[in-house]
C-alpha cells in the first residue's frame, strides 16, 4: 500500500495539525519470524507516545525502523510530513537516546553534544552557544570538558539527551534510557527528563518494557505483543479499559477470572457472579464464543 505523505499532511492541515510521525502498515520479518506486523500509528506534534511490551514484542525493532537502522519489510514511515522509508538514518530528522547512551568515548561532553551540529555545518560560534545552552538545560555545563568515562550513569544519560536534542529534531527517540540505572535514580531522572521534554515540547517516541514508566510519562501508550499492537490509548484507557487479556495481564496488578457469560452477567468458574452493568471490571472474549476468559478487577 502506498501512502502519499504530502497529501496526508495537506489534508490534515485543514482539520488538525499533521502528525509528526506516521507509521503506515509497518512490518518487519526475519525470514519466517515476524518481528513487527502491520503497525500503523500517528504521533501528533508534541505528543509523548510509549511503545510498551515485554522483550521480543517488536517495540525496539519499531523504534530502530523509525531511526533508520533497520529497513522495514513492508509499510511506510513518515516524519514531519516527509516519507523517510528509503532514507538513511542521517537524513531523518530524529534525535535518539540509546539504551547504553552510546556517548563517543574519545570526545568530551561538549564535543559529544556538538557532534551533530558540526555535521549539519552549524557555524562554530553558534555551535558553542547551542552546546552550552543544552548542557545548562541538563545541568552539566560545569562538566563540559570531561570525557564520558568520568561521568556517572545519570550524568551520561543527560549528556545523551542533550546531544539528541541539540539538533532540535522533529522527533525524539528514547530506547529504554532508564534501564541501566538503579531504581532510586531512575525515578528522579525520569522526572528530570520529562520536565525537559515537556519544556521543549518535542514529539517523543519512547520504548520501554516498564509499564510504570509508560503510565507515568506518556500521553498515549502503544501496547505491543509478539509484533502486533494490542491496544493504543491514553494511560487511563489502557489501565482502566484494557482491550485484551494480554494488556490486562501486562498492565497494573489485577485479578483475572475465567468464567462464562449468561443472563447479562459474568459467572466465574468458582461461582462469583458479576452483573454486566457493574464496573469496574472488564470482559474479554475468549476462544469459544460462549466462554469469556477473564475479567479485570480494579485496583485490587
Amino acid at each position, binding site marked *: 500500500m502506498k501512502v502519499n505523505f504530502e497529501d496526508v499532511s495537506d489534508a490534515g492541515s485543514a482539520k488538525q495539525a499533521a502528525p509528526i510521525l506516521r507509521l503506515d502498515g509497518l512490518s518487519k520479518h526475519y525470514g519466517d519470524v515476524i518481528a513487527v506486523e502491520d503497525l500503523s500509528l500517528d504521533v501528533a506534534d508534541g505528543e509523548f507516545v510509549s511503545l510498551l511490551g515485554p522483550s521480543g514484542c517488536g517495540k525496539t525493532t519499531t523504534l530502530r525502523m523509525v531511526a533508520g537502522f533497520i529497513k522495514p519489510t513492508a509499510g511506510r514511515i513518515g516524519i514531519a510530513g516527509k516519507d523517510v522509508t528509503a532514507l538513511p538514518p542521517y537524513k531523518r530528522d530524529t534525535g535518539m537516546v*540509546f539504551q547504553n547512551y552510546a556517548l*563517543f568515548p574519545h570526545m568530551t561532553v561538549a564535543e559529544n553534544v556538538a557532534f551533530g551540529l558540526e555535521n549539519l555545518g552549524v557555524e562554530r560560534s553558534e555551535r558553542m552557544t547551542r552546546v552550552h545552552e543544552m548542557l545548562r538545560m541538563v545541568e552539566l555545563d560545569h562538566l563540559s570538558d570531561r570525557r564520558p568515562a568520568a561521568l556517572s550513569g545519570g550524568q551520561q544519560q543527560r549528556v545523551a539527551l542533550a546531544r539528541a536534542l541539540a539538533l532540535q529534531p522533529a522527533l525524539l527517540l528514547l530506547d529504554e534510557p532508564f534501564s541501566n540505572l538503579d531504581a532510586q535514580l531512575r525515578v528522579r531522572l525520569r522526572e528530570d527528563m520529562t520536565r525537559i521534554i515537556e519544556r521543549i515540547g518535542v514529539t517523543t517516541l519512547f520504548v520501554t518494557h516498564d509499564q510504570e514508566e509508560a503510565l507515568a510519562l506518556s500521553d498515549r501508550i502503544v501496547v505491543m505483543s509478539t509484533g502486533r499492537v494490542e491496544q493504543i490509548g491514553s494511560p487511563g484507557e489502557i489501565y482502566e479499559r484494557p482491550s485484551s487479556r494480554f494488556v490486562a495481564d501486562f498492565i497494573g496488578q489485577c485479578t483475572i477470572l475465567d468464567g462464562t457469560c449468561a443472563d447479562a452477567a459474568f459467572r466465574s468458574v468458582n461461582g462469583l457472579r458479576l452483573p454486566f452493568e457493574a464496573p469496574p471490571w472488564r470482559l474479554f472474549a475468549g476462544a469459544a464464543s460462549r466462554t469469556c476468559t477473564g475479567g479485570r478487577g480494579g485496583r485490587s
Partner: protein
Amino acid sequence: MNSSSVAARGTVRVGPSGRYAWIALTAPLAIVLLLFLVVPILSLLRASFFEGDRSFNASGVSLEHYLRFLTDSYYLNVMLDTLGYGLATALLCLVLGFPTGYALARAKPHWRRWGLIIIILPLTLSLVIVVFGWLVVLGRQGLVNQVLVFTGLIDKPIRLLFNSPAVIIVLAQQFLPFMVLSVMSVVGHIDPTLEQASANLRANRWTTFRKVIVPLSLPGILSGLTLVFVLSVSAFITPRLIGGHRVQMLGSLIYEQIIVLLNWPFGAAMSAVLFTVTLTITLIVNKWLKSHPG
C-alpha cells in the same frame, strides 16, 4: 572475625610458595627468551664493537663499524630508503587492511572464522615461495601483464619488477595479515551502537568513519602500523629478489655482510643501528598507546 585476621590468614595461606609461584610459572618462557633472544642480541651488540672485520676470535672494543656506517652517506641513504619503504608499506597495509579488519570485526562469527583463515593462510607459506610467486605474477608473461594487455591498457607487456613499487606491494602482501588482525581486534571492542549514534547525529558513512571509527581504532591502527613497519624494514629476501639491485634495503646489506662477506662486526653494527631505530619507534608508539587508552 575482623578484617585484619582475614588479611593475616590470607598472608599465611599465600606464604612463600604462593608469592614465588609466578616465578616458577614464568620461568620456562623467561629462560627460553633469555637464551634465544636476550643472549643473542647481547652477543650481537658485543660483536658490533669488535676491532677489525674478523668474525671469529675477534677482540677489542672499537666504534669503527658504527663510524663507518654513520659517516658514509651511502649507508645513511640506504637507511633512509629502508625507513621510507617501511613507512610506505605500513601505510599501504593500512589502506588495504583497515577495511578488511573492520569488516571482519563486524562480520557474523561464521564469516569471521573463514575470513580469518583466508587472511592467515598466506603466513603459512614459505616466504621464498611467496616471493617467487610474485616474480611470476608480476613477470613479463605474468597475470598482471596479461590482464593489462587484454584490457587494452597497454600494447605489449611492461616491466613491473625490479622497482620500489613492486617491493612495497610484495612487502605489503606479506605483512597485511598483521594489520588486519590488529585492526580487527580493536574494532571488535568498539560498540557498534556508536556508529548508529553517529548516523543518528546526521553523520554520513564517511563522516562516521572519519570522526568515530578511525579515532576509536587508533590503537589498532598504530600497533598494526608499527608491526608492519618493523617487519618491513628488516626484510631482505623481498628487496633482493623483487627489487633487484635498484632497491637497496638495510636488511640486504646486513645479510650480505653476515652471510656473504662474513664480516660479522660490521653486519652487527648495522643490525644494532636498525634495531635501535625500530625499538625507539616501537617504544614511542607504545608510550602513546598507554597515554591514550581505549
